[in-house]
């Protein structure tokens, strides 16, 4: 029903565009000069069609359920029911009318369900009538108003401005909403677990929190030594470090090769091929790490007499590094290519060789972009989840031995939120606290990156 109505309104919009433009052409044919192109008259009418429709639709969406509920429950409000009972009755009748009700059907529920259905259908048809008449009225009004000297260009431009503004506002508000939900849950978490224990505790063992019987009262002391985040922070940075040790040299060198040494033909094929690496889903990297690299490292280690865990930080970090290579190589290739040819010419003309030119002129000139690409890689490494979950295990060991298994923030969030979970439980809130700290870390990284780049730019531009 709504879909048909919507399609109809869109058609109305096109029609009013057509009529607006037609009227403009008619005015034009009387040798009067228009204040705007005929299309603007069309858009103007289409906007007059869209705005009332949008307003009525949103008002309806906000108020219809409340009003229907009030109307249904007003019959029973004087009969001594409790508010909770009334709410339950409303929900039950709603479910029944949709055919989703599974409980015992009493006459009372049946009656209110019927009433619900009839109210809904009244609401629907009145919505159609109101929307259509509002649109027709407003379009007709606007159609009458437009004349040779009416202003149509400015309202149309303003409308576009407003639409674009709303779009960016939606993105910003979503971000703000997410951050706030993180903040509030995190605050709740720290009401139970002291901040000090979280930041400096060296034991991360959330499984301990799983055994709590929800009927028992919350006892903060039972969580001591459960949510100490040091091991997983250390693990996160450690694995990211290993990843960057792989990704930076290989990525940078291949970027330099592509930008400076490769012939056009090689570059034409090599660049897309490297970028394919970026398109591989991380879960594929994950089982590559868990099933191929991990066991291989274990065998290699055993043959050398080393104790290597099948799930090791080295396997996860190494594969993660391979995953990040295309980001660094492709981005640094782009920034190196965008260094002006005149700088290269200047250096070659001084008798510098290719490698001297790259080392002394091109690399410093491209450095802000290269730093940016590296920090992007670091953010990816810190935020990466699947590879760690699959290849480095879930036990949060505090270790700097790359051959042992360790865990990261993201992997622990997965651990916490898999299976049953309850809002308001410290175990669940721990995930929010971790998410919050992850967010802060990446935020700081980005700020530092911007500062570094800006400082460098100021110096040399």
């Amino acid at each position, binding site marked *: 029903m709504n879909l048909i109505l919507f399609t109809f309104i869109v058609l109305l919009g096109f029609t009013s565009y057509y009529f607006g433009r037609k009227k403009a052409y008619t005015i034009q044919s009387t040798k009067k000069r228009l204040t705007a192109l005929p299309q603007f008259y069309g858009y103007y009418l289409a906007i007059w069609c869209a705005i009332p429709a949008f307003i009525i639709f949103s008002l309806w969406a906000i108020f219809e359920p409340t009003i229907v509920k009030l109307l249904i429950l007003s019959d029973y409000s004087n009969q001594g029911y409790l508010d909770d009972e009334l709410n339950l009755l409303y929900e039950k009748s709603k479910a029944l009318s949709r055919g989703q009700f599974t409980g015992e059907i009493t006459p009372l529920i049946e009656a209110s369900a019927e009433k619900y259905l009839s109210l809904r259908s009244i609401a629907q048809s009145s919505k159609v009538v109101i929307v259509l008449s509002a649109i027709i009225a407003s379009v007709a009004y606007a159609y009458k108003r437009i004349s040779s000297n009416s202003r149509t260009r400015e309202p149309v431009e303003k409308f576009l401005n407003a639409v674009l503004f709303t779009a960016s506002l939606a993105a910003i508000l979503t971000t703000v909403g997410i951050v706030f939900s993180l903040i509030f849950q995190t605050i709740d978490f720290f009401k139970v677990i002291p901040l000090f224990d979280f930041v400096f505790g060296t034991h991360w063992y959330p499984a301990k929190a799983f055994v709590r019987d929800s009927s028992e009262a919350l006892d903060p002391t039972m969580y001591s030594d459960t949510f100490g985040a040091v091991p997983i922070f250390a693990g996160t940075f450690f694995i990211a470090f290993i990843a960057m040790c792989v990704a930076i040299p290989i990525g940078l060198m291949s970027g330099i090769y592509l930008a400076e040494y490769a012939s056009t033909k090689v570059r034409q094929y090599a660049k897309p091929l490297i970028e394919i690496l970026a398109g591989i889903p991380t879960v594929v990297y994950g089982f590559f790490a868990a099933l191929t690299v991990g066991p291989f490292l274990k065998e290699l280690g055993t043959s050398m007499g080393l104790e290597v865990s099948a799930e090791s930080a080295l396997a996860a970090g190494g594969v993660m590094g391979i995953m990040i290579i295309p980001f660094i190589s492709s981005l640094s290739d782009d920034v190196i290519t965008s260094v002006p040819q005149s700088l290269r010419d200047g250096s*070659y*003309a001084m*008798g510098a060789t290719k490698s001297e030119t790259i080392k002394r002129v091109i690399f*410093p000139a491209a450095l802000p972009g290269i730093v940016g690409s590296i920090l992007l890689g670091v953010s990816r490494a810190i935020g990466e989840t699947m590879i760690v979950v699959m290849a480095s295990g879930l036990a949060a060991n505090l270790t700097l031995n790359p051959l042992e298994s360790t865990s990261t923030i993201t992997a622990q969030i997965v651990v916490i939120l898999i299976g049953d979970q309850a809002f308001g439980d410290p175990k669940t809130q721990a995930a929010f606290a971790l998410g919050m700290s992850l967010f802060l870390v990446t935020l700081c990284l980005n700020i530092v990156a911007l500062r570094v780049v800006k400082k460098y730019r100021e110096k*040399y531009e």
Partner: protein
Amino acid sequence: MRKNGVKMIKIKAKDVDVFYGKKQALFNISLDIEENQVTALIGPSGCGKSTFLRCLNRMNDVIDICSVKGEILINDFNINDKSCDVVRLREKIGMVFQKPNPFPKTLYENVSYGPTIHGMAQSKQEMDEIVETSLKKAALWEEVKDRLHEPGTGLSGGQQQRLCIARAISVRPEVILMDEPCSALDPIATAQIEELIDELKKEHTIIIVTHSMAQAARVSQNTGFFHLGQLIEHGSTDKIFKNPDNKKTQDYITGRFG
């Protein structure tokens, strides 16, 4: 410069052809460049004068599809020969470009760039001296001596171009190639550079590509006129400007085409 009345020839180009892919850009160019003189190359855009200039320090090597045929003798040594070391060649033949292109480094590093890569200074002191003399010769020292460690890109356009000249002369090249060095500069900066060119020719042989006929007449002793990839006429600037042999040269000089 004439020794005992004999012209000293620094560069001798013989039958130089240049191709960009299959398209021929220069046809059979033969031109002698006199030592310690300013030679101007003039001609309409796309006539090949910059291409010819870039042959002289083998900058065309940088362009993949470009190939150069013929002989270019500098001090009687063919630079198109396989045995020619491009690094040494470019040490001897400096170049200044159309758009000032200082490196994104400090003033000091810009000037010390060449001496560093050619290992010309044994100590910090020596390097300081090279930087100072180069900047003095480029008439920039007084303006920048207090801010040698600021970025070179912070200078004005004219200063940047003089910095590029200082960078070019820091390795004491025998020849300096200038590819429209003033086309991005205002008249005052242009006058400064022209004055500088006059000064530099005492120690260097200078070849300058220019769009401005007035500039060619002001700074050069010899002029070559290029048109559609051919060297139409060359000779002393006086003769070319006052009494050219070729009709095309006459037309170009008087502004009838180009």
